[in-house]
C-alpha cells in the first residue's frame, strides 16, 4: 500500500478504533459507569456532527444543538406509549399522538427531521459571510429553545419528557458513533467537501474558480443536521428522559469546546476531543456528587465543575490554538503528510499560526484574505 493509501485508511481507522476502545472499556464497567460511557459516546457523536459543518466549512455554528434538540424530542415523543403521551402532554397535535415507533424507526426519523430542519435554516442563513452566519445561528438556537420550552402542542414544554424507553445501550451508542464517523469520513472524501474546504482556505479564490460556497456549505449543514438529529435520538434513548434546558447553551458550549480542543479541522480531532473531554466532563459532574480518585475521595461544590471545565478549555485553546491534534488526521504526520506550509486545509484557526508579519510569518497557508491577514499580523504585535 502506498503511504497516501495508508493515510486514508488511518483517517478512518483511527477514530473508529478510539470509539471501539471506549466500547470495550464500557463493556467491563459497572452499570452506573456504563451510563457515563454511553453518554460519552453520544456526546462524541454530536461533536462529529458539529465537525461535519464547522470543521469542513470553517464557519462556526451555535445552532447545531437545535437539531439535537428536535431529534431528541421527536424520537422521544414517538416512542413514548400513546396513553402516557395523552396524560403527560394533553395538548399534543394529533399527528404526534399516534403511531408508536420502534427504537430504530425513531432514530431514522430524528435524523431525517434534523436534516430537513437544517435545510430550512441553511437556506436562510448560509448566504451570510462566515462570522455573521455563526452569530446568526444563535438566533436559531434561541428560537428552537423558546418554542420547545413554551409550546405544549408539539412537546412537553418546560416539563421533562420522562418515560421514554431506554433502548440505547453500549452497543447501540458505539454503532451510532461509528456510523457518524463513517458518514463524516465518506463526506470529507467527496468532491463537494473538497470544494467546501477550498472555500474555507480562501473564499475569494474559491469563488474565483467557480465554487458555489452557498451550495457546499448548505450540503455540509444538512448532513451535520442529520447527524445531530440522529445523535439527539441516541441521547434521549440513552437517558430515558429529556428536558429542553439540557439541549441548550450548556451543551452548545461543551460540544463546541470538545471540537475545538480536539482540533476542529480533522475527524480525528473531533472524535478525540469528543471522547477525552466527554470523559473529563462526566468525571467532573460526578465529582459534584462525590467521587474518589486513587483512594482519595472528595466532593466538588455544585457548579464548580463548569468553571473548571471552562478554565481548562480556555487554557487548552491558548496552549494549542489548533487543537490537540493540530488539525491533523490520525497518524497523518507519521505517514508522511506534508506540513501545513503546503496544505490547503486551514480556516478555523488558519490565522492562529501566523506569527509576526512579513515573510518569516510561519505557516502561510493559503488564506490571504487581506483584511484578516493584516489584523492577525497586527494583533500579534506586542501591545505596549
Amino acid at each position: 500500500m502506498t503511504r497516501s493509501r495508508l493515510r486514508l485508511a488511518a483517517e478512518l481507522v483511527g477514530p473508529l478504533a478510539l470509539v471501539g476502545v471506549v466500547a470495550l472499556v464500557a463493556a467491563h464497567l459497572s452499570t452506573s459507569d456504563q451510563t457515563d460511557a454511553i453518554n460519552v459516546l453520544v456526546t462524541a457523536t454530536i461533536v462529529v456532527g458539529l465537525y461535519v459543518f464547522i470543521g469542513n466549512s470553517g464557519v462556526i455554528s451555535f445552532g447545531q444543538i437545535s437539531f439535537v434538540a428536535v431529534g431528541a424530542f421527536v424520537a422521544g415523543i414517538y416512542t413514548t406509549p400513546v396513553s402516557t403521551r395523552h396524560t403527560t402532554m394533553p395538548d399534543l397535535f394529533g399527528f404526534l399522538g399516534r403511531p408508536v415507533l420502534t427504537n430504530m424507526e425513531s432514530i431514522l426519523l430524528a435524523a431525517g427531521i434534523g436534516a430537513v430542519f437544517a435545510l430550512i435554516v441553511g437556506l436562510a442563513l448560509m448566504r451570510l459571510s462566515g462570522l455573521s452566519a455563526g452569530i446568526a445561528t444563535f438566533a436559531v438556537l434561541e428560537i428552537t429553545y423558546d418554542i420547545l420550552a413554551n409550546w405544549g402542542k408539539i412537546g412537553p414544554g418546560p416539563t421533562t419528557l420522562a418515560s421514554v424507553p431506554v433502548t440505547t445501550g453500549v452497543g447501540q451508542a458505539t454503532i451510532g458513533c461509528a456510523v457518524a464517523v463513517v458518514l463524516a469520513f465518506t463526506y470529507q472524501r467527496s468532491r463537494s467537501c473538497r470544494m467546501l474546504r477550498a472555500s474555507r482556505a480562501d473564499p475569494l479564490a474559491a469563488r474565483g474558480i467557480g465554487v458555489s460556497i452557498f451550495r457546499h456549505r448548505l450540503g455540509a449543514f444538512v448532513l451535520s443536521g442529520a447527524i445531530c438529529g440522529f445523535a439527539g435520538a441516541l441521547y434521549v434513548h440513552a437517558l430515558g428522559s429529556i428536558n429542553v434546558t439540557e439541549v441548550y447553551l450548556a451543551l452548545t458550549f461543551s460540544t463546541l469546546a470538545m471540537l475545538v480542543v480536539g482540533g476542529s479541522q480533522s475527524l480525528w480531532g473531533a472524535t478525540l476531543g469528543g471522547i477525552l473531554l466527554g470523559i473529563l466532563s462526566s468525571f467532573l459532574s460526578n465529582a459534584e456528587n462525590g467521587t474518589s480518585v486513587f483512594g482519595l475521595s472528595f466532593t466538588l461544590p455544585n457548579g464548580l465543575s463548569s468553571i473548571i471545565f471552562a478554565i481548562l478549555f480556555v487554557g487548552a485553546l491558548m496552549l494549542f490554538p489548533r487543537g490537540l491534534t493540530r488539525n491533523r488526521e490520525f497518524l497523518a504526520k507519521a505517514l508522511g503528510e506534508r506540513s501545513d506550509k503546503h496544505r490547503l486545509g486551514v480556516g478555523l484557526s488558519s490565522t492562529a499560526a501566523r506569527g509576526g508579519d512579513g515573510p518569516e510569518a510561519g505557516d502561510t497557508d493559503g488564506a490571504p484574505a487581506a483584511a484578516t491577514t493584516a489584523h492577525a499580523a497586527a494583533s500579534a504585535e506586542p501591545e505596549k
Partner: protein
Amino acid sequence: MTVVGYLVNAISLGALYALIAVSVGLVFGVLRQINLAQGEVITFGAYSLWLMRTLPTWLAIVLCFGVCIAASLLLQVAVFRPLRGASPLTTLIATFGVSYGLEALWLIVFGPSGNTVSMLTNLNLTVVGGTVALRWITLVEIGAAAVLLSGLLYLLFRSSLGMRMRATAEDLRAARLVGVRIGRVVTWAFVLSGASAAVVAVLATVQTPLVTPTFGLNLIIFALVGVVLGGLDHLGRATAGGFIVGFVNSLLGSVLPEQQLVYVTSLTFLFVVIVLMVRPAGLLAPRGANVERV
C-alpha cells in the same frame, strides 16, 4: 397616545441594545474579534451595583464604571492578548468559554434566584399614565444613549484618538506604518467598551432590577444578532442593527396578545433570520456589498 407610548418604549429598548452593540462593535472594529464575554462585563457591573447597595447612588455608579472598565481590560489582558493572532472564530469560542465559566461563577456566588438592585427606583415611576405607561427610565435611556452615541461620534470623528481608531479599523497594518500605536488604540477600545457596558449595566438594572446569572448573556446574544442584522463590518450599521432588534422586540411585546407573549424572543429572532435571508450582507449594508469579507 397609545401608539406614541409604544413607540417611545420601543425607542428606549432600541437605545439600550444600540449601546450594547457599540460596546461589542468598538472592539470588533479594531481587532476583528467578537467578544461574547462582554455580556459578563455587564453582569459583573450589575452585581457590583447590588454589592454596593449601601453606598450613595452616585458613588455606586462611579464605582460600577470602574468595575466594568477594569473587567473589560482584564479580559483584554487575560484572553485577547494571549490569543492574539488567533482566528476570529477561535477567539469567539474562547470568549464563549469565558462567558460560560463566569456564569457558573455567578451562580455559585450569587445564587440562581437573582438579586434585586433597588437603585434609582424613582425612575420607574410613570411620567404619563394611561393605557401605555411611560416610565422615567425610558426617557433616561433615550437621553443617555443619545448623549453617549453623539459623544462617541465626536470622539471618533473629531479627536486624534478617534482618527487613530478609525485608521486601525480601516487597515491595521497601514495604520501602524504611519505611526499609530496599535496597542494603545486596542486598550482604548476596551476602555470605551467597558464604559458603555457600565452604562448598560446601570440602565438595565434600573429597568429590570432583578439581576440573575444570565442577565448579561441574554442581552449580548440579542445585541450580537442585531449587530449581524445591521452589518458586522461597520460600527454605525452595527449600532443601528442593535437598535432595530430592540425596537422590534419591544413593539412585538406591545402588539402580541397576552398568551403569545412568551414567543416575543422567537419572533424577534425570526424577523432577523427573514431579513438576513433577503439581505445577507446586513439590512443596512449598501447593495452589492461583498458578503464574504469577514
